[in-house]
Structure formats: structure tokens, C-alpha cells
């Protein structure tokens, strides 16, 4: 916008740059409500991505392996790095700045820029403008903020980074007077350009600072180093042409409802929330969007916060939103049961929105699957989200481990990407032959006796005490069936190094009527795992 017409020298926009150092750490500390001086490290791909000042004092550095970091700082709290959290938690900061200065550009979470010319005239001077920003951010609980004001984005960023070394601890501010940016930048090393290859090359040519680099003739630089070099040259010369592009504040799509006094009954809450849910869906519809993933945050009277992300196989309408809020509240309980403490606030946030056009119904509907979905959603609203399931088959040795239930709507049926265990791995010890048609949800207690009527057992070396001759299965000692044919013991030793591992023996038994059973012997006790009925 300030790009000068050809002929006159290009000028840079007067820019205010706001920098919150270690924003991922600040965001994580706030999200998990940790102490400000906690030793915290955010981990991405097994390496430390960011660490708090306390951790840094103990020698934790970015790029360190987690184990090494934990060795250096034993009380280190490690959390996974969540880029979405950065974005999300920076949003209130942006909104607060937007309320006092128009046209904020978010460069990345923790770093935003504003054109300084207009606001500084409004507030009287640049210092006054900066102090207004400091007080505004302090009001939302953000004190560790640095501000740099200079000509151009690049110079302002460097000024903000220098600001921490200035004396004023309360308001770290660095203002470079208009026209002095080239002078200010001239002493910086080449590394701040963030172009390592170019920096190495220039150093070999004997150029060591931005001042040396800026002293070269612009036309020569362009001829020798191309467009990229010319850009770096302009940045070093303090005539950064990157204008501040203010963001358009996004439409407010999330919805928050406060309840005063707190509501203690789920049906009350569902009733009270319905209007807001309809307005929420209506607003999305107005923006030409539909929501496919939703985050519900519930705050209760006693200070608990329950947060959960819900997916939907199609998209949420108002009933679905109310259902999700209800399900999250009731957990496994009934719809009419009371809550442990009253709910004071419900916040619903669309995590993923998609274009309405992609989800519109076809002229003749979108086939039978739609009716299946609405029918199942009805059952879910009766019984709860986890009552209607689809199943996928995972890997494992025990039959109960091999089936994985997914609540309807949580993931596309048949998507195996989220499985904890891969079915295609060998799984030594899994069952050969046909799969039993009935696998008990909980193993059923059973009894196996030898011909003399004594219990059959397997010793530590896997030797059977006697051949099984009679068996029964069921809670009460039912009829005893003679064993016609049998096989076993087939030992299974799962995770012997882990206290949660299991050591058991498997048997197949067939009675004279031709019904076959799969039995487990674990810790000297018999269980029926499954039956081939």
C-alpha cells in the first residue's frame, strides 16, 4: 500500500510489532493451569520443541531428545506440542489488540504486527500507544510482552527482540525513530536474515554485518544474487517492502452460554441450550458453512472443566449439538440423573468447518445411507453415544482383544488407521482354524476335571496334571459334560516384562453332542473364552 511509484525511493511502513516470547510455553502453561515457573518442555517427534525459562536454566534446549532433557532436569513436565493450541490461545490476544488498534496481522502465534501511523496520532505518540497496548494485555493476564516500533516489519521485529535487553522491565519497548532503521540494522549479524546459505556465501565474500550487505549497490545485488538476494538486501537496508496486511476479523462462529444460577439437571440444561444451538447452526449456515468436528467445553460450579471433541459422519445440526452436550454431561449415566455440581458455562466451538456446497443434499437425496444415519442418531439419542457401535478387527492373541468397537460417528467405519494393534502382524499364539461365533464379553468361570474328579491344572513347565475328562461352564456349577476330544495346553505369554502382562494356557474342548468350547487357564482358574456354537 505504501509502495512508492517508480522513480522515488521505496519507503517502509511504520510498524508496531508485538512479540510474546515462548508463546507455545505460555499457551501450554495457561491451558494446563500450571505454575508460571514450572519446568515445562513441549515435545514434538521425540525432541524438545520449546521449553520454559525454568527448564532452560537446568540446561534443557530446543532439539534435545526427551530422555536427555529429563536427565538434565528430573522434575521436567513433558507435554506434546499442539500447534492448534497456540493458534487458539493467541486468538484472545489478537482480539484484545484489535479492540484498541485497527488492522492486526498475525505473523504466527505469539507475533503480530500493526501499522503504527494512524494509532500513534490518535493516542498522541508512539510511546503512549505502546503503553496502552501494555495495559490492555496486562488486563487479560499477559505481562511478558515486548514491543518494537520501527520502519518496516523486519526492523520492527529486530527492535522487539532487542527490547528485552532495555532497562525498563515493566514495559520492554524499543522505538527506532523514523528513518533510522538502516542505522539500527547495520550492526546485526547476517544470521537474522534467516537465509543460512546466503549468509555463508556472504561471509566468504567478507561481508559480516547487515550494514556491509546494505552498502552494496541494489542493482548489482539483484544481478548477482537474484530476486531472493534482492529481497534480503532490501530488508537489510531498512526498506522492507512487506506491507502489514491486516486480517479480516473472522466471523464469530463459536457460542458461549452462561447459566446463572448454575443448572444441575441435564434436561434443564439441554432445554436451555437449545436456542443457542439453533443460533449456532444458523450462523454457520449463514456463512455458507457446516461443522463436521465440534469442541464442547463445560465449566462447572466447582471449577471442573470438561472438554471433548466430537466428530460427526455428516455434519451437526442443532439437535446433534444438543445431544453432544448432553452425552458429554451424562457420561455413562442416565439422562435424568443429577450432576455432581452445577454447570455454569457451555462453550461450543466448531473445530472443522466445511463448505455447505460440499455437503448439500442431492436432488433426489443422497441415498439410503442418510436414512441409516438419522435412524442410528435416534438410537444414540436414546441410549447414549457409546451404545451404537461399528466394529473393526485389530491384532491380538485373545479374541476379546481382536475386536475394537467404535461409536457410530466417531470415525468413518472401516478406517483402520487409528488401530492400536495391527491385524496383519503375525501375532504368534493366536487361534488357528475357524473363529468361534460367540466370544463372551467377560470370560465365564468354568470347571475342568479329570477322570477321578480332581481339578486339572498346568504346572510352571507347561505340563498338564491329568487329561481333562469332564467340564462345565457357567456361573452356577451347571451340568458336567464329558470331554470327547480336546487339545492343549497352548501357552500364551503376553508382555512378561510388564506387571499388566498375562500368562495363560488355552484349550479346545468338544463334548459328545458336538459343541466345542475355547477355555483359558489363568492363575489356576478356568474360564470359558468362547464357544463354537
Amino acid at each position, binding site marked *: 500500500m505504501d509502495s512508492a511509484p517508480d522513480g522515488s525511493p521505496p519507503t517502509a511502513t511504520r510498524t508496531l510489532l508485538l512479540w510474546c516470547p515462548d508463546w507455545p510455553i505460555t499457551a501450554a502453561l495457561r491451558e494446563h493451569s500450571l505454575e508460571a515457573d514450572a519446568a515445562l518442555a513441549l515435545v514434538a517427534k521425540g525432541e524438545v520443541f520449546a521449553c520454559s525459562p525454568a527448564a532452560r536454566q537446568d540446561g534443557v534446549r530446543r532439539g534435545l531428545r526427551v530422555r536427555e532433557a529429563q536427565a538434565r532436569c528430573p522434575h521436567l513436565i513433558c507435554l506434546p506440542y499442539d500447534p492448534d493450541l497456540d493458534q487458539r490461545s493467541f486468538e484472545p490476544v489478537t482480539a484484545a489488540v484489535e479492540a484498541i488498534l485497527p488492522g492486526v496481522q498475525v505473523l504466527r502465534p505469539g507475533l503480530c504486527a500493526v501499522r503504527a501511523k494512524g494509532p500513534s496520532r490518535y493516542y498522541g505518540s508512539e510511546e503512549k500507544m505502546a503503553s496502552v497496548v501494555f495495559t490492555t494485555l496486562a488486563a487479560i493476564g499477559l505481562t511478558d510482552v515486548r514491543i518494537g516500533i520501527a520502519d518496516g516489519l523486519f526492523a520492527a521485529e529486530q527492535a522487539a527482540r532487542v527490547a528485552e535487553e532495555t532497562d525498563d522491565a515493566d514495559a520492554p519497548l524499543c522505538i527506532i525513530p523514523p528513518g533510522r532503521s538502516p542505522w539500527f540494522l547495520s550492526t546485526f549479524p547476517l544470521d537474522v536474515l534467516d537465509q543460512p546459505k546466503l549468509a555463508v556465501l556472504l561471509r566468504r565474500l567478507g561481508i559480516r554485518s547487515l550494514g556491509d550487505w546494505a552498502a552494496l549497490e541494489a542493482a548489482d545485488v539483484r544481478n548477482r544474487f537474484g530476486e531472493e538476494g534482492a529481497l534480503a538486501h532490501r530488508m537489510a537496508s531498512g526498506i522492507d517492502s512487506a506491507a502489514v496486511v491486516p486480517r479480516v476479523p473472522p466471523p464469530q462462529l463459536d457460542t458461549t452460554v452462561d447459566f446463572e444460577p448454575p443448572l444441575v439437571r441435564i434436561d434443564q440444561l439441554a432445554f436451555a441450550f437449545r436456542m443457542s444451538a439453533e443460533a449456532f447452526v444458523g450462523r454457520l449456515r449463514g456463512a455458507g458453512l457446516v461443522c463436521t468436528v465440534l469442541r464442547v467445553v463445560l465449566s462447572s460450579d466447582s471449577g471442573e472443566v470438561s472438554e471433548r471433541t466430537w466428530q460427526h459422519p455428516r455434519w451437526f445440526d442443532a439437535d446433534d449439538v444438543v445431544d453432544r452436550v448432553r452425552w458429554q454431561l451424562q457420561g455413562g449415566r442416565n439422562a435424568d440423573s443429577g450432576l455432581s455440581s452445577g454447570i455454569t458455562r457451555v462453550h461450543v466451538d466448531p473445530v472443522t468447518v466445511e463448505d455447505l456446497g460440499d455437503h448439500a443434499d442431492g436432488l433426489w437425496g443422497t441415498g*439410503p445411507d442418510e*436414512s*441409516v444415519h*438419522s*435412524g*442410528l442418531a*435416534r*438410537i444414540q439419542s*436414546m*441410549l447414549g453415544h457409546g*451404545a*451404537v*457401535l*461399528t*466394529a*473393526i*478387527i485389530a491384532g491380538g492373541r485373545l*479374541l476379546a482383544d*481382536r*475386536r475394537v*468397537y467404535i461409536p*457410530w460417528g466417531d470415525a468413518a*467405519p*472401516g478406517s483402520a488407521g487409528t488401530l492400536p494393534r495391527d491385524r496383519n502382524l503375525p501375532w504368534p499364539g493366536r487361534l*488357528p*482354524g*475357524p*473363529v*468361534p*461365533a*460367540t*466370544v*463372551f*464379553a467377560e470370560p465365564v468361570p468354568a470347571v475342568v476335571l479329570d477322570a477321578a474328579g480332581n481339578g486339572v491344572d498346568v504346572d510352571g513347565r507347561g505340563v*498338564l496334571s491329568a*487329561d481333562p475328562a469332564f467340564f462345565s461352564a457357567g456361573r452356577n456349577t451347571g451340568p458336567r459334560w464329558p470331554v470327547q*476330544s*480336546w*487339545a*492343549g495346553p497352548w501357552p500364551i505369554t503376553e508382555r512378561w516384562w510388564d506387571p499388566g502382562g498375562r500368562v495363560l494356557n488355552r484349550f*479346545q474342548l*468338544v463334548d459328545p*453332542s*458336538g*459343541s*466345542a468350547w475355547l477355555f483359558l487357564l489363568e492363575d489356576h482358574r478356568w474360564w470359558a473364552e*468362547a464357544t*463354537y*456354537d
Partner: protein
Amino acid sequence: MTPPAAGALEQDEPSFSGSGASGPRLVTAPSPGSLPADLQQRINQMQASRLDSKRLPTVPALARILPGGGLQSGGSYSVRNSAALAMALLAGPSAQGAWCGVVGLPEFSVEAAREFGINLDRLILVPAPGAQWLTVTAALVDVVSVVLTRAPEHLAPTDTARLKARLRQRGAAMITLGSWQQSDSTLGVAESVWEGLGSGRGHLRARRMKITATHPSGRSRHAYLWLADLQHGLRDPAGGRLPAGDGTPDSADGGDPLFWPTLMNS
């Protein structure tokens, strides 16, 4: 397509010797023979397509003993003592892309269901409907083609009649494990023998079963089957056709002296 070919052959017939003409006759003989059977089958199907008796795809091994030659939409069936048999009944519609629902059976083994050819992407499980069994089953009947359930012990006759009417209206079939008063047929495993297991050796490999289907009138039919017949029953016709399709060129190559000369003569 067959009649013009046959006509063309018959037109050609006088110009060749009698021995040469016998070849084409042999080749075309099966199609007029099977034609009445085909027609009869089509007539049967059209006669059977009354409102309440559209047929759902069924495993052939079971279709033979079920009344009406297969699962009827709107029908209800009970399976006495075998979850495997119930799965085999589900497998037919599921393999054709129908949605299936399983209500109140937490011990239903989805892995076995997959072995039977049930499409798990279109299988809905409601393991614990609790006290709302009837509502849930009725809601599922609205949206899926086959519902497998364990009947509750006490159900008012009016509720049973209403569920039955809902089934007929929606064209869905219901299979219950355990007895169900108004079932169209009751299936059960009467005899069963396992193979592959000795005393302390081997593992279960194959199962030979006698399956009975009892009509409410007391008439019953039975069939002797291998478990594998139920599991691969759906793949069998396709599998049966494929070797036949491959076999024809093979036998033509192998049987050069027998058939090819006569065909080329004609």
C-alpha cells in the same frame, strides 16, 4: 440370442451330412433343455413377489431348506442354538450391500462375522439396549435390512404383533437367537461333529452339521452341511461359475478332435 443361433444352425443343416449336423445339435441341446427350468424359475419368482414375500439374498445351502426358498423380507426367523447359523443368515444380504443390525448380543463375534462374509462397514451393533429393547429394535428395523437379536423373555403379544407389522411394512427380516413365537421358521443345529481334534492333539478344523428348519406347522426339512459351506456359500456360485468359464476353453483346447472340427464344419 440363442434362438437366432439355433435357427441359423437349422437353416445350415440340410447342406451338411447328418453326422456333421449332430455336432451342433449336441452343443445347442442344453439350452432348450434348461429354458423351461429358467422360465419356471422366473415364473416362480414373479408369483412370489407379493408385497410380503420379496426374497432377500440367502446362502444357497440354507435357501434350500428355508420356506419360500430363502429369507423373505418381512419375515422373522429364530435360530435355536447356533450363533454361526445366525451369522450365515446375515451374510447373504450383507454381501449384497444391505445394512445389518445386531441388538442385545454383547458376545457377537465380529471376527467370525467377517469370516462368514458379513461386511463390517455396514454392521451396526447395539450390545446393550437395556430396557428399551423394543424401541431400539423397531428403530433399527426402520433403517437396516436384517436385524439379529436375542428376544427378551417377556414381550407382550401386542408388542410382538406390532413389531411384526413394522417388519412387513419396512421389508426387513428379523432373526432371533432363542425362541420367538411368531417365527416363520425355526432353524437349529440338530447334530454336529468336529474334525481335527484328537485327545490332546490337533485343533478344530472343520465341522459337519445337520441343520433342521422347522415350519410352525411342524413340517421340517434338514440339510447336512460343512461349516465351510455356510462360510463360502456365497462365493461358491461365483467360484463355481469361474472354473466352468475357464473350463470351456480348456476342454475346447483339450478336446480339439471332438468338438472343434464339427463346429468349424458347421
